């Protein structure tokens, strides 16, 4: 029965009439489902087939508005249907439903063409928000905890809910615009004033996809609110090196050496970053 539920619906949102080997689904359903005076075995099984797909598609529709805006609503439905057909949920919680979406987009670029790279950036960003929302946290380290350890020996862990993303597109700005448009539409649907506005004014504004630009982003939470924070390339490099287990001294040296920016007071800048990251509670003990 589960295999039939996981099979995608027809374009008319019904159960497919044939099984993978060409046999009739009517016959197959009749083998194990009783009909009643109103519904055939096929129709009764179809209720569950539809429930499954409506539930999982609805979930991804809500969790990935950015990806949806990039590929368009119709193509999004085809994309996530293909994704779930290949990777059905492997977790007891719907929270994890998109946990292999990035892998899928890399494996099957045709679903997000011609904007595969943008779509991949967005999916990484949207998954990072899932992690930041309710991912685990560890007790943060305070400056006093590390006072006696020299930077050459000091290694810091980063909070598990913190994701560091090196992106080729400003998907953060794009997603903010998408969410603003969606909330405007919601407000519009709740208001008679908007209903009486001219059609042209009611038409949804299309949001132009972002242009290619390098963006370094930290997706995190603070006081249990979700935030995304742009980082300088060197700051990103330091945090990435720390997450790999480098000492503070090595992480900073590596980042500064690789930088082509001059006229910066690096010790002062780095101190400022560390103060900020510490205040945000990003540092914890290495596991």
């Amino acid at each position, binding site marked *: *029965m*589960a295999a039939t*539920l*996981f099979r995608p619906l027809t374009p008319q949102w019904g159960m497919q009439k044939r099984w993978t080997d060409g046999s009739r689904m009517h016959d197959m359903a009749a*083998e*194990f*489902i*009783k009909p*009643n*005076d*109103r*519904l055939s*075995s096929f*129709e*009764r*099984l179809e*209720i*569950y087939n539809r*429930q*499954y797909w409506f*539930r*999982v598609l609805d979930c991804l529709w809500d969790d990935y508005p950015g990806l949806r805006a990039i590929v368009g609503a119709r193509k999004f439905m085809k994309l996530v249907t293909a994704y779930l057909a290949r990777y*059905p*949920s*492997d*977790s*007891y*919680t*719907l*929270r994890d439903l998109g946990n292999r979406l990035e892998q899928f987009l890399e494996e099957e670029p045709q679903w997000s063409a011609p904007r595969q790279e943008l779509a991949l950036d967005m999916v990484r960003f949207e998954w990072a928000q899932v992690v*930041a*929302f*309710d*991912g*685990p*946290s560890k007790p943060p380290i305070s400056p006093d905890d590390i006072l006696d350890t020299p930077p050459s020996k000091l290694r810091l862990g980063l909070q*598990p*809910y913190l994701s560091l993303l090196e992106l080729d597109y400003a998907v953060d700005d794009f997603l903010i615009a998408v969410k603003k448009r969606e909330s405007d539409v919601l407000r519009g649907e709740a208001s008679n004033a908007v209903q009486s506005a001219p059609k042209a004014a009611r038409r949804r504004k299309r949001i132009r996809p972002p242009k290619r630009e390098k963006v370094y982003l930290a997706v995190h*939470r603070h006081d*249990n*609110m979700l935030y995304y924070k742009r980082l300088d390339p060197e700051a990103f490099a330091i945090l990435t090196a720390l997450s790999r287990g480098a000492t503070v001294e090595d992480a900073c040296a590596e980042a500064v050496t690789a930088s082509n920016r001059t006229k910066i007071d690096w010790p002062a800048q780095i101190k400022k970053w560390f103060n900020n990251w510490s205040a945000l509670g990003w540092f914890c003990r290495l596991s």
Partner: protein
Amino acid sequence: MVDGGRPLEVLDAILEQYRVVQHGVAIYFGSADKFDREHLKRLKRLVRRTNTPWLSDHLCWGSVDGRYTHDLLPMPYTFAVARHTAEKIRAARDHLEVPICVENVSSYAEYHASEMTEWEFLSEVVELADCGILLDVNNIYVSSKNHNFDPYDYLNNIPHHRVGQIHIAGHSKFEKYLLDTHDHPVLDPVWKMYAHAIKLVGSTATLLEWDDRIPSFDEVHNEALKANKFRDEQLATTTASDQFPGPTA
């Protein structure tokens, strides 16, 4: 079940003011698979956090070979399935170290393989597992219409002393079947069944489920309070000697 963030903050705020009884949708006592150890581990952590007096989940299956349907699928009502399900309920209770109640689900399909009625199956499972029942009156009504049985036969023929909690809810009517949608007020026939259930099981903790198209708090609250009226009326007409013991954890 999550590791941190706002959901746990909200839960902790609620726990400071209220006693919480945990209810789940993903244990899948009826699945042929072994339990997902990670799921049980997290569930146990949550049980300790909430200090729930008992834990309820559905009498259904929903996963196979590690793939999840996220649905509450009906089981074939056979003796073999009843034994298997009861063993899993006992194993979950031993692991989680709290009493367990199983909830009857609404269903839209029946299997040729079934050897008994749903209420016989429920009774068989809870007796074998020595566990409680979370009696969903609306689910019984929905299934009775979908499968052409008398819902009062169901109510009258389960072990009433095992009922630890009752659920009521609204449902949606389609042309050929009813769907358990939790997005409407409770319908009159369900209230009548609820009154009968209270007469049979005594005063029992009751939860109104309304989790889609949710109206104002006042509307939901007033609907929930109707349950008190039915309970009080029923208990007033029931002599003390007729009453069954109240629910226990």
